[in-house]
């Protein structure tokens, strides 16, 4: 065990930092869920990233990546958040579908889909949930009917993040007549294909971050199926593993927020109406962010040494979602009567980030589901 960066790692950090200092937009972009303009501004940023060779640093060169290791990836993320660079509008593609494609895709599929994903030329939405299938994903009803070399897709997807403005979506579809975990396939479809209707759903902060998607006889080539026909559940579980695991929520995000919180505390602590007990919560937020970072470094080291991620990934999901809420609640308590106000331009947007944090325990598999997974698969408690 040696918790010091190598000179090469230090040099890499310096390189990232210098590039970001020169390229991160000086004015924050409008949120990608707020409007089509905001979305397109983020797509342009993805293209800028790609030009700097920062599209997906861990992906192989041939798929638009840079072939670096996980520690370098963490360093990149740290600098990225530190520079307050724009949110990754293509996160559903690069963090969820990308790794799954790498594992289950054919060479042709990888060649076709990965490079434009890494460059932001094609932005992806996820289409997991349906009105009757949320936590219980095996309850999916949308169908894929085989017709020669094509599938005909029908159904109703909902809570599809990014789908209002994105280009492509991936989701589970079942063979007509199949039940539960059998007969499902993971299939890609263009969001502008004939037969696709998208309705925006406003989130509680007013952004149109979700869509519901209606599919009526949408024809896609069988080439768009990832993995074998009927093996969708298996492929989907792997994707969920990535979602919970290393990639979805960078520790850097919380370390930056914890540092902002410490600043907020410093600026407020002397005021008479500040609760002195909040000092403990500021320290707690710092500890939580540190612990999450250390845990991710430990996992990255283990993966680089050949280990695989198991059900303990579910502990990540619980930890970051709960620390995020705690951190933002502490900030709101410090803000007192200012807490309810929408932020002024340029200021740290505590209230909106709090609202966003509240979704953490819900999405990507609710924390109730994650606790079941920990209890059953990690601790070995009986299912029934």
């Amino acid at each position, binding site marked *: 065990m040696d918790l010091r960066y190598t000179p090469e790692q230090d040099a890499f950090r310096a390189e990232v930092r210098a590039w970001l200092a020169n390229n991160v937009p000086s004015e924050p972009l409008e949120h990608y869920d707020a409007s089509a303009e905001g979305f397109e501004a983020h797509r342009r940023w993805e293209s800028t990233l790609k030009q700097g060779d920062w599209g997906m640093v861990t992906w192989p060169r041939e798929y638009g990546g840079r072939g670096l290791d996980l520690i370098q990836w963490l360093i990149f993320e740290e600098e990225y958040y530190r520079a307050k660079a724009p949110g990754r509008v293509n996160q559903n593609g690069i963090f969820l579908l990308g790794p799954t494609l790498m594992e289950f895709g054919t060479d042709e599929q990888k060649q076709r889909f990965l490079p434009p994903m890494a460059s932001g030329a094609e932005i992806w939405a996820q289409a997991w*949930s349906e009105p*009757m*299938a*949320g*936590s*219980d994903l095996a*309850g999916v009803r949308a169908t894929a009917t085989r017709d020669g070399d094509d599938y005909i897709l029908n159904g109703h997807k*909902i*809570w599809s993040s990014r789908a209002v403005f994105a280009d492509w979506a991936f989701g589970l579809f079942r063979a007509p007549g199949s039940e539960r975990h059998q007969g499902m396939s993971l299939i890609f479809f263009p969001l502008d294909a004939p037969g696709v209707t998208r309705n925006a*759903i*406003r*989130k*509680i902060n*007013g952004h149109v971050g*979700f869509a519901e998607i209606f599919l009526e006889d949408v024809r896609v080539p069988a080439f768009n199926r990832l993995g074998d026909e009927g093996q969708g559940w298996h492929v989907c579980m792997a994707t969920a593993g990535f979602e919970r695991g290393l990639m979805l929520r960078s520790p850097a995000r919380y370390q930056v927020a914890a540092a902002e919180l410490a600043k907020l505390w410093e600026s407020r602590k002397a005021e008479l*109406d*500040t*609760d002195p*007990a909040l000092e403990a919560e500021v320290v707690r937020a710092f500890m939580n962010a540190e612990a999450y970072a250390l845990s991710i470094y430990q996992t990255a080291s283990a993966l680089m040494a050949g280990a695989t991620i198991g059900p303990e990934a579910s502990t990540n999901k619980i930890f970051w979602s709960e620390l995020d809420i705690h951190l933002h609640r502490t900030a*709101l*308590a410090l*803000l*007192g*009567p*200012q*807490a*309810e*106000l*929408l932020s002024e331009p340029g200021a740290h947007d505590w*209230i909106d980030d709090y*609202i966003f944090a*509240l*979704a953490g*325990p*819900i*999405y990507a598999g*609710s924390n*109730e589901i994650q*606790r079941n997974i920990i209890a059953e698969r990690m601790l070995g408690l009986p299912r029934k």
Partner: protein
Amino acid sequence: MDFTLNDEQRMFSETARQLFANTCTPEDWRRQMESGSPIEADRWAAIAETGLTGVLLPEDAGGLGLTELDFAMIAEAAGYYALPDPLIESAGIAAPLLAAAMPDAKVLSDPSAIVAIAHPINPLVSDAEAAQVIVATKDGDSWLVERDDARLTRRQSIDPFRHLYSLDFDTLKAVQLPETDWDIALDRGALFAAAQGLGLAQRAVDLAVEYAKQRQQFGKPIGTYQAVKHHLASAQVAIEFARPVVLAAAADFAAGDRHSRARISHAKIVALEAADAAARTSIQVHGAMGYSWEVDVHLFLKRALALTNSWGTPVFHRRRIMARIKSEPLGPDRTFARDGVEA
């Protein structure tokens, strides 16, 4: 010693509850969110007509001369239905303050008039734009300001029904008020925020219970899962142990002593905590639905957040309780104690 509500009190609060139930439906909320209007004219007319704006005004000023306990139950109902209109701040806090300072103020004779209050404890003024007059402090004195003489700047709250303004005014154009007890106004503000908190909390739980009975996952309603049950049970426990505190604080309001002030503070803290916890639980139970604008549970979350920090933050109220702990004897014989009265 009698801790029960009488029939008259129950009936009156039931009337308010019915009025809000009929006029604050999800459709009404959405219409008002779109319009951005601080009041909805028909509803406000019904509120004034039912006498809700005059509950705390003396009978000789055309009011009903009722007590803070009666108004607290109206405030609870207002919380339950997320009433958008400024009934609580105007009729529960601002108008009684004005009536005590200037009983013959003309605005008090109009039951549909809105009085706003710029209390030093709150940096911003609610619904100042919709008000006819604003009661305010400046340079240590108390003033009555006509809305048109006030300089108002809108600040956006996360709660779509909160219309907040920063206020400035010229004392030359305002009427100075005599003997104004801003502490009593603060107590009323805190007490009625607490009562609203009870209503917000119960509604958030009720919405989640309804959803959990219907929503199916893994072949059965999610309300059959122990995790869902236990989250909602915990939220309900918090409500059950906030309600008697709010009622006792309201009943003892008139005492105005350290004990009753500490109880108001206690009510304020725990009722808003219950509301916040219930709203978060409700969002969690609703899953992605709870995170969408179309499901109304976010209104209760936002209102709870706003009220938590209005009329004294939690630490402000905690300090008032600590002051009572330090200055008066503690013990089981002191639950209903008043200053200077030995148990």
